[in-house]
């Protein structure tokens, strides 16, 4: 509430500390913000994570490379496919494994499906954070459900897919998969438009997200932001374009870039990315060749000693795997560059001095996944 800026007063006033989390509707997991409030305005903010820490990087040092793939499912549990892909690409580069072309196309299809599913979740929860009582979220879940059905159809799991393998993918999709996928990509653009019409022109949503949580392009680069958070600030940086992996160099798509760097821009970038992803899937479906879906590799793959930093553009941005090999079947060092964690670097700058609802929306727009933060 109202205080003056006197030093005497500041020390005399008890800070009003609010613990947002670890169990809170807007932290999207067991994530905790300890916020010092002055009325509605945030004066200081501390982030407390680690409630979901499983020490994945330590555990990985005792397992073979293939055995580590399921860990990546559980790091960013809303983008398991992209995480699988990141690790597999890194290991393939380290060990020099060739990937069949069909597998590369399948990887692109699944990674893009995963991106749509993840963005649906991100945007849905962002609108929920802005106060819409779950309606937009459930609209987006409608499409996400279908994508998860496709995952289940292919690899038997909906969330922790464990689908990619070093040298390809685990299974070729069943024959029923392709018509279902065709149906999905045919209806997706209309569904995305429907969702957009529900939210993006809503005057209240604009009032809540315009000029909130603004990050300038320079700050975003310096603060190591990646993914939609970086692109929302106007920086056209997308690893699929910058260093194309798999077969992204054969796809035609565009990178959406925001204008102001606010919450609304990040929201809109995600919306546009789902449209682009649909286009990529369509192209991949048209181009996909036959052939094997996997190269055979030794059960205990022993990459030569050395190190590699492999990365992909996951739904939350640059997902890197820094692997150090000493020639044994298990990695000597296994480090995940988690976009959710590093995107939080600027949270304090975004949240201090604004009101609590704005901070909640800003946090929601960064699209954090606690499994990815804590690993």
């Amino acid at each position, binding site marked *: 509430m*109202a*205080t*003056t800026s006197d030093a*005497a*007063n500041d020390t*005399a006033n008890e800070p009003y500390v609010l613990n947002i989390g670890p169990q809170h509707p807007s932290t999207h997991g067991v994530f905790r913000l300890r916020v010092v409030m002055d009325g509605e305005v945030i004066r200081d903010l501390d982030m407390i994570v680690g409630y979901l820490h499983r020490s994945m990087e330590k555990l990985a040092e005792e397992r073979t490379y293939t055995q580590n793939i399921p860990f990546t499912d559980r790091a960013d549990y809303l983008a398991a496919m992209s995480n699988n892909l990141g690790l597999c690409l890194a290991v393939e580069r380290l060990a020099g494994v060739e990937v069949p072309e069909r597998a590369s196309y399948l990887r692109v299809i699944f990674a893009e499906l995963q991106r749509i599913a993840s963005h649906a979740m991100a945007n849905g929860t962002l609108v929920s954070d802005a106060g819409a009582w779950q309606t937009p979220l459930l609209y987006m879940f409608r499409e996400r459900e279908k994508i998860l059905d496709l995952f289940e159809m292919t690899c038997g799991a909906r969330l922790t897919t464990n689908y990619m393998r070093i040298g390809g993918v685990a299974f070729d999709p069943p024959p029923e998969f392709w018509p279902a996928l065709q149906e999905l990509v045919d209806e997706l653009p209309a569904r995305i438009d429907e969702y957009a019409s529900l939210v993006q022109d809503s005057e209240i949503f604009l009032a809540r997200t315009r000029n909130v949580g603004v990050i300038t392009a320079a700050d975003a680069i310096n603060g190591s932001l990646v993914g939609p958070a970086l692109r929302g600030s106007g920086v056209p940086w997308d690893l699929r374009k910058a260093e194309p992996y798999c077969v992204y160099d054969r796809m035609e798509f565009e990178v959406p870039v925001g204008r102001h760097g606010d919450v609304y821009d990040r929201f809109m970038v995600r919306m546009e990315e789902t449209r682009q992803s649909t286009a990529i899937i369509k192209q991949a479906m048209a181009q996909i060749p036959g052939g094997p879906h996997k190269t055979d590799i030794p059960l205990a793959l022993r990459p030569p000693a050395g190190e590699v930093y492999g990365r992909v553009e996951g739904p939350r941005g640059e997902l890197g795997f820094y692997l150090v090999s000493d020639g044994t079947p298990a990695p000597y060092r296994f480090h995940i560059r988690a976009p959710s964690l590093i995107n939080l670097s600027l949270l304090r700058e975004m949240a201090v001095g604004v009101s609590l609802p704005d901070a909640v929306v800003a946090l929601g727009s960064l699209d954090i996944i606690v499994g990815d933060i804590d690993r």
Partner: protein
Amino acid sequence: MILEGLSVTLAHYLAVSGVIFGIGAVIALSKRNAVAVLMGIELMLNAVNLTLLAFSRFSSAFTQGGAQGGEPLSGHVFVVFVLTVAAAEAAVALAMAVLVYRHRETVDLDRINLLRG
């Protein structure tokens, strides 16, 4: 009926009003907290309101429509003014309490002795 013969007269209302006024005065005089003092003052004003309304109701002008020259509802109008003044006074007094707190970090009236230097 049990209540026969227990009719309520003007004196009853005045007595109740006197008691409330007295309690209000005690609160206003004895409390340390400025807000509590204000509560006492509001109670005293309320007691006065009760008196005014009682006189208005029990005066013969009330039912005879001012036949004897008095306005029947003047008491009510006075009460309206008292309400107005009370609201204004409460707003200003509470603003002052907040202000005093901001400068002196207390609303304890025993410690607010600016004039003592």
